[in-house]
């Protein structure tokens, strides 16, 4: 699978994500936020970090980069678009996913390992998991998922909630850790599966996330 990893100024998990994708046999390429064409890729990954310093609001400035139009086009064409951490924030700011990521309930950055529940095991991001509970690192200061009640109800009904925190570490509504759009091809999550592909570094529970994507 040909994957693009988008580099914004201030992205800092871009290389980690590249490593993970290569390890899992994606054909991965770094693409600048100023690029305008993503037609040669099957999947677009937006990495974690602090795009444009996360100034104003996380993801708020990145949303105006030239690449966003191309990402929207790819999403509309049914390609996979995956935002991790800052990538998730960018996708909500850009309107590709509903809701918003706000400051953690207890202000301050947290870096830890989070236990997640796979709520929708049939999604394009979870279909290879053989278990319901996994451990994936988190690292964020603005990861509290917020959306209005109607949106949350719709997410629930359409099985768009893919991952939940088992223990609510940041105050997200309904413990939401990762969601997809209605069609199921655009996805965002705060935890970092790219940090979980080797037991030596953390867990290897992130591998099945990537193999699920390869499996489509």
């Amino acid at each position, binding site marked *: 699978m040909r994957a693009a990893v988008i580099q914004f100024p201030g992205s800092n998990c871009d290389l980690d994500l590249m490593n993970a994708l290569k390890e899992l046999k994606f054909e991965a390429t770094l693409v600048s936020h100023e690029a305008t064409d993503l037609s040669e890729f099957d999947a677009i990954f937006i990495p974690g970090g602090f795009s444009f310093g996360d100034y*104003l609001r996380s993801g708020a400035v990145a949303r105006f980069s030239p690449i966003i139009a191309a990402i929207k086009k790819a999403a509309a064409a049914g390609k996979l678009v995956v935002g991790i951490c800052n990538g998730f924030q960018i996708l909500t700011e850009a309107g590709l996913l509903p809701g918003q990521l706000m400051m953690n309930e207890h202000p301050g950055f947290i870096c830890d390992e989070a236990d997640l529940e796979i709520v929708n095991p049939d999604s394009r991001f979870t279909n290879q998991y053989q278990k319901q509970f996994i451990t994936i690192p988190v690292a964020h200061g603005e990861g509290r998922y917020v959306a209005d009640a109607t949106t949350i109800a719709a997410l629930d009904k359409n099985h768009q909630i893919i991952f939940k925190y088992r223990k609510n570490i940041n105050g997200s509504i309904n413990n939401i850790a990762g969601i997809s759009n209605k069609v199921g091809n655009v996805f965002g999550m705060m935890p970092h599966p790219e940090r979980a592909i080797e037991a030596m570094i953390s867990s290897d529970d992130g591998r099945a996330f990537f193999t699920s994507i390869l499996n489509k």
Partner: protein
Amino acid sequence: MYLGKVYVSYKPSVFDPQGDVIKKSLNQLGFQNIGQVKQGKYFEIKLTDDSFEEAEANLKKFTEELLINPNTETYQYDIVEDEK
């Protein structure tokens, strides 16, 4: 020259953890007559538009496009003449 001032605050329904922390610290410091505290953002933007009307139209436009997230935030603004 105009000076635009934009005050951004969370919509009433949105939980503001910073406001909460500040309220608690104020209480700890001995300030008891404190109700709700909300922390928002304050922007000062120099506008070089020719007329007040243009300045105002632009300010509203870019505030809604960039400065706020309309899902959770609202804003108020002032525009004043600025010498230089």
